[in-house]
């Protein structure tokens, strides 16, 4: 299993490249990446010079009036030697076809890729791999990855994106209450539902607003049984302020074995106390209203 880090800050580039097998970076049609084009190019060059794989995130939707930008972006991507493109919008598949880049595509359907049939469907289209939904239980993940060895990626650490909207919730809210506030691209804002205590990061960008889990998902106890079947494990660094924590987690995932996994997990919990969770791995979410 390759270990990938999402790179969110320029000053983390060198360390990220030194610990991860590859990094994921976004520029257009992605969330949580705020690099200039110059920085984006620098990151690419640094990765290539240090034999670190370079993946592009395109995990947002594309509207019709952004199509020209999408094709211009593909012009640029085509000129690079990227190792993969994480995509979300089905229009990107169409664009990638015209650049013969389908084999570089990795479908990240976020919430919608939850089963073996859809996984097989996408792989049959000639793409590289798929990212499984974050809402799957461990047995569900096992079934899919065993059926598709080395063809699936999984987010293995970080806050999980819970919602994605084109609406600008913060812009609209501050307009409604008549308050000026600097919130664009700001990663320190959180929501707490009036009858609950969970603090959920909220991020508004030009493309809209996303809300993330209050907890940091981790799967140290489970990864060793899955890693032989996974193509890539993704550590998402968004909202994680402690740089040391990020890189230690990355090192831990690299050295983890079935013998040391509980020790590693306990060390993380002890050294970097945070709100960790196994997410939905042991928690089905199919309760329905009666």
């Amino acid at each position, binding site marked *: 299993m390759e270990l990938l880090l999402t790179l969110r800050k320029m000053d983390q580039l060198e360390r990220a490249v030194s610990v991860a097998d590859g990094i994921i970076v976004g520029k257009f049609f992605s969330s949580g990446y705020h690099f200039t084009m110059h920085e984006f190019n620098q990151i690419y060059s640094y990765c290539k010079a240090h034999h670190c794989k370079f993946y592009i995130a395109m995990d947002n*939707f*594309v*509207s*019709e*009036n*952004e*199509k020209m930008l*999408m094709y211009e972006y593909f012009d640029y991507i085509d000129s690079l030697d990227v190792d993969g493109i994480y995509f979300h*919008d*089905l*229009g990107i598949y*169409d*664009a990638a076809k015209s650049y013969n880049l389908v084999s570089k595509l990795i479908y990240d359907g*976020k*919430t*919608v890729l*939850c089963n*073996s*049939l859809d996984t*097989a*469907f996408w792989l049959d289209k000639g793409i590289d791999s798929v990212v499984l939904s*974050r*809402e*799957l239980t461990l047995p*569900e993940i096992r079934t899919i990855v065993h059926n598709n060895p080395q063809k699936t990626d999984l987010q293995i650490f970080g806050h999980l994106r*819970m*919602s*994605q*909207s*084109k*609406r*600008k*919730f913060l*812009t*609209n*809210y501050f*307009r*409604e*209450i008549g308050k000026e*506030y600097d919130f664009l691209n700001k990663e320190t*804002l*959180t*929501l*707490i*539902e*009036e*009858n*609950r205590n*969970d*603090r959920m990061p*909220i991020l508004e960008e030009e493309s809209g607003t996303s*809300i993330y*889990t209050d907890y940091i998902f981790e799967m140290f106890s489970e990864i060793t049984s899955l890693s032989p079947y996974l193509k890539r494990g993704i550590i998402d660094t968004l909202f994680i302020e402690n740089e040391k924590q990020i890189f230690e987690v990355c090192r831990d995932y690299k050295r983890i074995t079935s013998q040391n996994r509980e020790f590693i997990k306990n060390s993380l919990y002890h050294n970097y106390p945070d709100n960790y969770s196994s997410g939905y791995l042991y928690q*089905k*979410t*199919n*309760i*329905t*209203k*009666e």
Partner: protein
Amino acid sequence: MNKIELLAPAKDLMKAKIAIMYGADAVYVGGRFYSLRSRASNFSLEDLKEISTFAKKYGAKVYVTVNIIFHDDDYYGIREYLRYLDSIGIDAVIISSLALIPVVKREAPHMECHISTQLSSLNSSAVRTLKEFGADRVVLGREASMDQIEQIAKKVSVPLEVFIHGGMCSNYSGRCTLSNRMTLRDANRGGCAHSCRWKYHLFDGDKPISNPNCLLSMSSKDLRASAYIERMIRCHIASLKIEGRMKSEYYIAQVVKTYRNMIDEIYEKGTLSPQRLAYYDGELSKAENRPSNDGFLSGDCDNSRHLYGVNGAGVTHDYIAYVRDYDGKRGIATIEVKNVFSSGDVVEAFGPDLDNKRFKVEYMFDEEWQSVLLANKPTQILRLRIPFAVKEGDMIRKVSRI
């Protein structure tokens, strides 16, 4: 040129029949499984057969939603289900699992595959991808503006379906798991708790920055696209879709009838005057239980399109009776009471072939022909003197709000 389709939702058999009687060209309904509205009554296999037969008599179509985000276990029995739907003459399934396209083509060759708005198709390239995958129709995401819809329609050959009325997800459809996290109800498998309509404190670090008297909400006003119907017809959208599989028969009847008349008038006259549009907007307001606007159609979805300080929809009590029968000789209708009304109230009857007609409630009787002055028992059967002909399926509402 095919006339644009008016597509209505239905929670159960009765509402599906009402939608068709009031002018829907097609209805979309959910079976007891595989459908996103788990709280809707939903159709048994027998109900599906009955509505298919009923629809054919009216020249209408029936689409069945198979639009949950499938987990492996959810596929159990799907092939048999699809074959059954095909055998009873269902016209299409609305799906979000792309892997179902080849399954439908193989197991149910007479049915079309319509791609659900769950996939948020928002550009012509995405629609082309879906066509390549075998889609027979694509439901566009509700985030597209009217200009973008026109652009997409110009560039693709696969029929497009567009939402024109009803509730809106505040997030991209299918990309929201707030409900999963906060209530363990899977929003994408029929359990959405509408957490987006709740109220939230906003913090920057540890500092509260929301207004305690007006907390943040993501709640969206409902969609009303009446002002865009003419443009949608002109750019050859295949189908205009009304949202609301959880809504009442009154809502279905009023909204369907209004859009039916509006569409027919546009085809007949070539356009719709501002006065006529205002009239139709007034008609749509009668069924409204939440403020509405044009959503993303005008481009920007600003704060005027959100609801702050309101958690959910209100319930209107304007719908007072459903007509079951009419005795023309005596001028007496048999009605089923829906909400409270009394002798002396001025009310309005409407129906598939009856435009709003007012009358005063004067003579009411129960089934033993005892005089009734106050109708306050929902589902009670009463006899009501109505000074003009009505028929089964017509409805009566109060005019106080109108």
